């Protein structure tokens, strides 16, 4: 019997090596797998490359991982926010490398990795400093920039419900990067508010089919804490 559910958060993040590229879902706090990040801090992997839309808020979640000194580089679109003081301090001190990527290019580079695409031409960023040094091409009169996929060793994502085969559904706009990050990582780990029996998820509405998911861990969420 195939059962991708694991019993503890420690099991969920077991085996993340030093130097790994780890994708973390979420847009700000929505969809951020805070408990999996806490488990990763506990697990101890260092020298990580993190892929996320942002660079942490406040002092918890991704910000806590940065603060713990485990991250060498962050790939993101929007690091600077009102409460990104942990990132700001490390960046200004030269202790954290930043690769800034326009948000749609970030999403498409992740999608491309999961879809087996070698690279793609995108109009976004052409002529800007974020495209400096990159190959360009004019196609049908429009200018494009060549962008490469982002592959990850692990993806830590947050979904609402999952089953033992790894099928997932999400909740509202907390979906954001979860489905594409699941496809782009060698080992995608989903924390879910509820594990349901096979067949309980309507096959017509499953967002992430289990083929993309290696581990599922239940993290109960109080309604008020969403």
């Amino acid at each position, binding site marked *: 019997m195939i059962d991708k559910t694991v019993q503890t958060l420690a099991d969920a993040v077991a085996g993340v090596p030093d130097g790994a590229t780890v994708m973390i879902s979420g*847009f*700000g*706090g*929505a*969809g951020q797998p805070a408990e999996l990040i806490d488990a990763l801090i506990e697990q101890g992997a260092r020298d990580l490359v993190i892929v996320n*839309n942002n660079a942490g808020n406040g002092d918890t979640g991704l910000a806590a991982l940065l603060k713990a000194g485990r991250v060498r580089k962050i790939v993101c*679109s*929007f*690091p*600077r*926010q009102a409460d990104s003081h942990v990132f*700001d301090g490390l*960046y*200004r001190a030269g202790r954290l490398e*930043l690769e*800034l*990527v*326009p*948000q*749609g*290019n*970030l*999403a*498409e580079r*992740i*999608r491309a990795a999961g879809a087996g695409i070698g690279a793609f031409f*995108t*109009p*976004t*960023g*052409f*002529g*800007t*400093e*974020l495209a400096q040094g990159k190959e360009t091409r004019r196609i049908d009169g429009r*200018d494009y920039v060549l962008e490469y996929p982002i592959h990850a060793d692990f993806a830590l994502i947050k979904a609402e419900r999952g089953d033992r085969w790894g099928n997932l559904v*999400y*909740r*509202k*706009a*907390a*979906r*954001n*990067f*979860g*489905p*594409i990050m699941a496809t782009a990582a060698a080992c995608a780990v989903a924390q879910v508010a509820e594990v349901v029996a096979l067949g309980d998820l309507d096959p017509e509405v499953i*967002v992430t089919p289990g083929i993309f998911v290696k581990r599922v861990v239940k993290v109960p969420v109080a309604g008020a804490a*969403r």
Partner: protein
Amino acid sequence: MAYDKLSRDAMAARVARDIPEGAYVNLGIGLPTLVANHLPAGREIFLHSENGILGMGPAPAKGQEDWDLINAGKQPVTLLTGGAFFHHADSFAMMRGGHLDICVLGAFQVSAGGDLANWHTGGADAIPAVGGAMDLAIGAKRTLVMTEHVTKAGEPKLVARCTYPLTGIGCVKRIYTDLAVIDVTPAGLRAVEWVPGLSFEALCALTGAPLARPA
């Protein structure tokens, strides 16, 4: 003759007038967000949010916030009946693929050729953050800019060439300022209308690129 600048709400109302029923629209962070408050109640318009929402509704009542339902500025919002959620690659396909009819963005500068600079001051100690600005600028069928006509220091924000780092090239179609509505045409900037009491010559003097009279 004396003139009054448009308030931020008056600017938003002016932009809202130009958004037709059935339009798929993305409103950028900051000033453009105000446009949502001025869309006529009877007009069905689909608001898109980059984080995976179509049919975005207004802010919820106090105490009804759901932090899984936020806008691009990470503020709580609601979903209209008929709205939909989708992942990030689909959301940006809607922009880059030319499916959005209109996006409204703020600006540091807009050039006479429609280049937009709105993401980074380029300052040595500034932490850069781009978000979805570059995708929006070049993705929507019609990119509109909403901005004060001049900076707090009185410098024109409509310029011959942008000096701030660019967001997109040749992407802006129309500019709504607190003094005027200005089209970006193949021949350069052309005034559409301006506030009462302001002479065309005075408007030109506050604009950093040649400005043509209305067609």
